């Protein structure tokens, strides 16, 4: 027995090793991963690690954690966490929550679906700056929105929707909603519609079908969509500057980092703020993914 294996090993060590590797999915095709891995290493891992070590080397001395101490002891800086969360979480929740019923209703549409989808995608392609500019014109004191309200005598002066919390919130919804909608639509299209038909023959009305069949199957996708929408909203920057109140109510965390790094030229402090930002995002995403782990995540095709 031992002799036999010995002979085989010496006779063809190379092919047998190759076969053993191939069994684990290791073969030459893995080289195709190289560009992607290089991209991630060079453009994400390296800058991140560089920033991380930089954040522990404060310009003015005071120990390894001086930058973090500065951030958490200065209420103006510390509060950026809450300001950003107060913007990002409701915006992400609204975007996801609004996407679900709209995508769900549109699933049954045959005509007009493409047009509406295209229309909804436009804000993504425009980018935040153009959206902010549009907001300035549309909801500003001299914009159509307030003109109409004034002419209808619903307001005396104008509704303040710019250069405050609501300006940024609106911008986050306008740019974030299409994104959430597209993701939710994609997740919905993966659920076999025959399941709802089966549920209806079992006595489930429209709401029950959604509540017991479609939503549980959609929930893992909702979790992912929320995470991505939240990350998008939490890193809000241009609109906080353009349609917000960047020194006050919309002094978001990315503005703080920008201010430290590129206006005060304190790169290490800027890096520290960026690290805090990353940590907050990871905590929120971690919580959502923990919830997602409790859900059914298998196939949602008809065959089960």
């Amino acid at each position: 027995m031992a002799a036999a294996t010995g002979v085989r090993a010496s006779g063809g060590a190379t092919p047998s090793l190759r076969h053993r590797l191939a069994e684990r999915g290791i073969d030459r095709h893995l080289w195709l991963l190289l560009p992607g891995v290089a991209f991630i290493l060079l453009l994400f891992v390296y800058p991140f690690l560089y920033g991380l070590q930089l954040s522990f080397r404060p310009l003015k001395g005071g120990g390894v954690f001086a930058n973090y101490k500065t951030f958490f002891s200065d209420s103006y800086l510390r509060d950026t966490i809450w300001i950003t969360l107060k913007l990002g979480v409701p915006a992400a929740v609204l975007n996801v929550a609004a996407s679900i019923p709209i995508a769900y209703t549109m699933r049954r549409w045959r005509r007009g679906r493409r047009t509406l989808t295209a229309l909804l995608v436009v804000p993504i392609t425009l980018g935040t700056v153009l959206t902010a500019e549009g907001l300035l014109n549309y909801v500003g004191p001299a914009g159509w929105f307030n003109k109409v309200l004034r002419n209808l005598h619903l307001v005396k002066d104008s509704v303040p929707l710019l250069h405050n919390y609501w300006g940024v919130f609106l911008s986050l919804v306008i740019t974030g909603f299409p994104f959430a909608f597209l993701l939710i639509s994609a997740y919905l299209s993966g659920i076999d519609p025959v399941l709802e038909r089966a549920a209806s023959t079992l006595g489930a009305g429209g709401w029950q079908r959604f509540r017991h069949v479609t939503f549980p199957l959609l929930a893992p996708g909702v979790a992912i969509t929320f995470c991505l929408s939240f990350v998008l909203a939490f890193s809000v920057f241009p609109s906080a500057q353009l349609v917000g109140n960047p020194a006050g109510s919309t002094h978001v965390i990315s503005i703080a980092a920008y201010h430290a790094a590129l206006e005060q030229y304190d790169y290490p402090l800027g890096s520290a703020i960026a690290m805090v930002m990353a940590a907050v995002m990871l905590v929120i995403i971690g919580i959502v993914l923990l919830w997602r782990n409790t859900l059914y995540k298998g196939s949602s095709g008809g065959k089960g």
Partner: protein
Amino acid sequence: MAANKKGKIVQGERFAELRLEQVSRSFAGHVALDRLDLTISSGEFVALLGPSGCGKSTALNCLAGLLPLTGGSIWLDSKRIDTIPPEKRGFGMVFQNYALFPHMSVRRNIAFGLKMRKTPKAEATRRVDEAIKLVQLQEHAHKLPGQLSGGQQQRVAIARAIVFEPSIVAMDEPLSNLDAKLRLEMRTEIRRLHQSLGLTTVYVTHDQEEALSLADRLVLLRDGVVQQIGTPEEVYTQPKNRYVAGFMGYRNMLEFAVERELNGQAVLNGPGVHVAGVVRDNLVGGRAIAAIRPEDLVVGTVGENQLSVVVEVVEYHGREQSVQGRLGDGESVFFRTDKRLAPGDQVMLSVPTERVLLFSTEAAAAPAELVT
């Protein structure tokens, strides 16, 4: 038919008969189902049979309320039900691809219909237990559908459709996704369930063997139009037209000249052929089609009916062989024999007169008239 003889689970909404009147359904101008008239009595097992695209699934979906009708009406005794949404109709449905809820255990899948009806918990538990026992899935009750085999999944689907005591169970090709062995097992299972529970069942299939073995009555459809409604025996032995005959296993459709017609029988002649058969149609134009099952043809000169063929292809099937031969006029003839034949052999075939059905050569136009 006495329903619910031993019925423990099914005592649902009692009714005497389900009537489909002139039920029609079109899709963008294409008529998928054309004026279907059908009365199903309580406890009956009716199979809708036909090739794909014949309208059988459309009919079932209309019945279950998953497709609105474009014409006609459906009645449960004196109650019109075709405008009632599927969730209020209370019909159980078994889907071709099972349509089990993948995120629910077997038990929760089966309990779904009871939950929707807000059945008291104790009773729901008892009924789900009974249903699980009925389809013999006790050991799998806590598994997810994805962990079950196709046959087990289909048993869950059946249990789920019958546990809430539906007045009617609709089955849409429930066995077509299973392999041959499982299909036979499940067929017996469905028959057993029907016999023990007396469920009124409407069963859609393209497999005539399945329909013959399961149903009390068959409805043969073609291009949305009913061809024949009758018991399995009627449809099998007395097909109304050429199309039904072809679908029910009369594989040989041979066209010959009519020599004479008398007392419901006729004699046909062709090159090397002399066949008498039973007239099932108006024979016009001096020619007729003789429909003969391959298994009714025997090798040898028995009786008066004789067909002279040259053997072309021989398939070995174990106990017997399936042979394709050619007549003098070039038409193919299929028959079975336990004799050893080889391609090129010249053989004489015989067939009893009562096993030969004669149809008009213009039968293709007939179906529409046959409905009335």
